[in-house]
């Protein structure tokens, strides 16, 4: 394995060592810009080749770069490089009021804005000691689980794109996603940037017509899923390309803080909806799918099974949705000044644990606003999963982790 820096690396040698921050220029500095392919001189391995995939590459789901060192076609080292979309979201959060950060959270994981909103609302409610109304908690479950279905539809479609079935499964998935987005548009006014949750409830109350439409859509969804699975799940190419590819051990997954479907595919039954039981989740009867092998196929199946469980939760939520106010009339949103203190609130997002850590100093803006991004932390094990596989498999493994660069880079 190639660990030593090459002496040809420009810009690293000759940096004056004059401050404690010289670790910035440590020899492990990121691989160099410039030529995207260069040979690594290592007498012990044949011809190792360093390939920079990305940042502009269709397989990287955004501006994301993988610096892979290859022995033939086999990956022997892989370093993810990101930050191209970095806009210091956390600093923006410190410079605005609590409520004004709500629309920004949509831009983190822009495929699942509703759950970002929810996690942030939950953290602020913990910080300020507010409680959402019961109807709002049910509506949160409804929109949150619909969001999970939308997200998993996208993921499965893009995963098949990465496998080489150019766009057909993706367009099937997007056709379904479109129906959900239409509903979200009717409810919130926007298709992706919802800004829907408030501290103590939700912004608007869904009408009975909206609920009827949503219920009809959910009732028809398992039929689509059956049809979709019939084409994809047993597909021979799919099995050959995903089974045993990108295995992750449960021990490493826990230690590396992996959450969401990627963790559960390894056989660890950790779902925050069950563990924390936030909102009204303890009232619903649903199961947490768990994988056996922790490979790409299991990660795909987790998404399919979770969509089916989401349908079960949604049907119960539509049945039990209570009447009442959608937002606590005494809820404080504008000009909220929580007492000095701190709170960490987290929910089970479609990609894993999305959490917000807030410190209040008693003023209108948070003193510290931190996002715990699931796809950022799930990338920690990308190298471990890719070692020993070919470049084409690395594309599929990355696709199965489910990252959104808006959240990774913040």
């Amino acid at each position, binding site marked *: 394995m190639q660990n030593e820096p090459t002496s040809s690396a420009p810009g690293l040698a000759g940096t004056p060592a004059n401050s404690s921050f010289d670790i910035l*220029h440590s020899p492990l500095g990121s691989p160099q810009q410039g030529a995207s392919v260069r040979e690594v001189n290592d007498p012990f391995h044949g011809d190792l080749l360093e390939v920079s995939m990305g940042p502009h590459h269709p397989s990287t789901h955004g501006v994301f770069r993988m610096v892979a060192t290859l022995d033939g076609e086999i990956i022997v080292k892989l370093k993810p490089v990101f930050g191209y979309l970095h806009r210091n979201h956390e600093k923006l959060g410190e410079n605005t009021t609590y409520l004004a950060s709500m629309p920004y959270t949509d831009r983190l994981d822009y495929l699942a804005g509703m759950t970002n909103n929810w996690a942030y609302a939950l953290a602020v409610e913990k*910080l300020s000691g507010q409680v959402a109304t019961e109807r709002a908690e049910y509506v949160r479950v409804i929109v949150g689980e619909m969001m999970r279905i939308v997200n998993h539809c996208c993921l499965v479609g893009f995963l098949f794109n990465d496998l080489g079935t150019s766009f057909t499964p993706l367009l099937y998935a997007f056709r379904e996603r479109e129906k959900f987005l239409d509903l979200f548009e009717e409810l919130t006014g926007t298709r992706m940037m919802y800004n829907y949750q408030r501290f103590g409830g939700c912004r608007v109350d869904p009408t009975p017509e909206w609920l009827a439409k949503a219920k009809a859509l959910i009732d028809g969804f398992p039929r689509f899923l059956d049809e979709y699975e019939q084409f994809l799940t047993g597909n021979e190419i799919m099995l050959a390309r995903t089974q045993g590819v990108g295995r992750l051990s449960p021990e490493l997954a826990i230690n590396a803080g992996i959450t969401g479907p990627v963790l559960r595919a390894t056989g660890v039954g950790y779902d925050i909806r069950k563990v924390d039981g936030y909102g009204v989740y303890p009232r619903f009867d649903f199961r947490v799918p768990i994988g056996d092998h922790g490979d790409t196929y299991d990660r795909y199946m987790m998404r399919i099974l979770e969509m089916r469980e989401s349908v079960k939760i949604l049907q119960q939520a539509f049945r039990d949705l209570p009447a009442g106010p959608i937002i606590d009339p005494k809820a404080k949103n504008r000009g909220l000044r929580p007492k000095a203190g701190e709170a960490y609130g987290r929910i089970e997002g479609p990609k894993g644990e999305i959490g917000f850590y807030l410190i209040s100093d008693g003023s209108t803006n948070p003193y510290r606003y931190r996002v715990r991004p699931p796809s950022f932390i799930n990338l920690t094990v990308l190298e471990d999963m890719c070692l020993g596989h070919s470049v084409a498999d690395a594309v599929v493994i990355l696709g199965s982790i489910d990252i959104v660069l808006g959240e990774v880079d913040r």
Partner: protein
Amino acid sequence: MQSIEQIRDLIVARFPGAEVTVIQNPGPAAQHSLLLGHAQARDIALFLRDEPSLKLDFCSNATGVDWPEKEIVETTKVKVAQPDGTEKLVEQKTKRLQPGYLEAVYHLYSMALKHGPVVIRLRTGNRTDAVSLPSLTPVWRSCEFQEREIFDLFGIVFEGHPDLRRILMWDEFKDHPMRKDYVEPDDYEWEPTPHDAVLTKAKGHYPAPGSTANAEGGM
């Protein structure tokens, strides 16, 4: 799960003389935290991970907080003897400079026992030259990218981190943007309709209309 005081007692029983302080959280969330000294921080972290009654095997969130030095004005009432022999209460203000520091905060959960969070904190000596902390990446791999991010945005140097380099900003970047005293660089791109803060900035970059510099450069 044990209370934070019980966890502190467990640690002190295992590591006599270890610096462990409970930091109370006055907010409604009541997530109290443990402040660890540097010397045994990694041993204590290992103990928290492996102790059968805690099993905090999942470090969910690691982040930094910047606490710049601040002036604290304390008002005390002092009795001052008056010329006529009586005593009078007089307010006396004393200014005290609270030194600044950087802080790393870790939120620990247990996947095995399904409890948490336990919050631990580490503090640097100051914000300028004593900014190193022991890295907890050898204990929880999930800190790998998060500690790199703290190093990048706050400037805390984690001793023992396997690959400490910038992660979100580019390698040549010099400052730490999440610090409270960070000043954004004075770079300005021409805008057709500058307003508010942008207008103020624009004035610093372009000569005012009618000034000599403009006349020379213009027609």
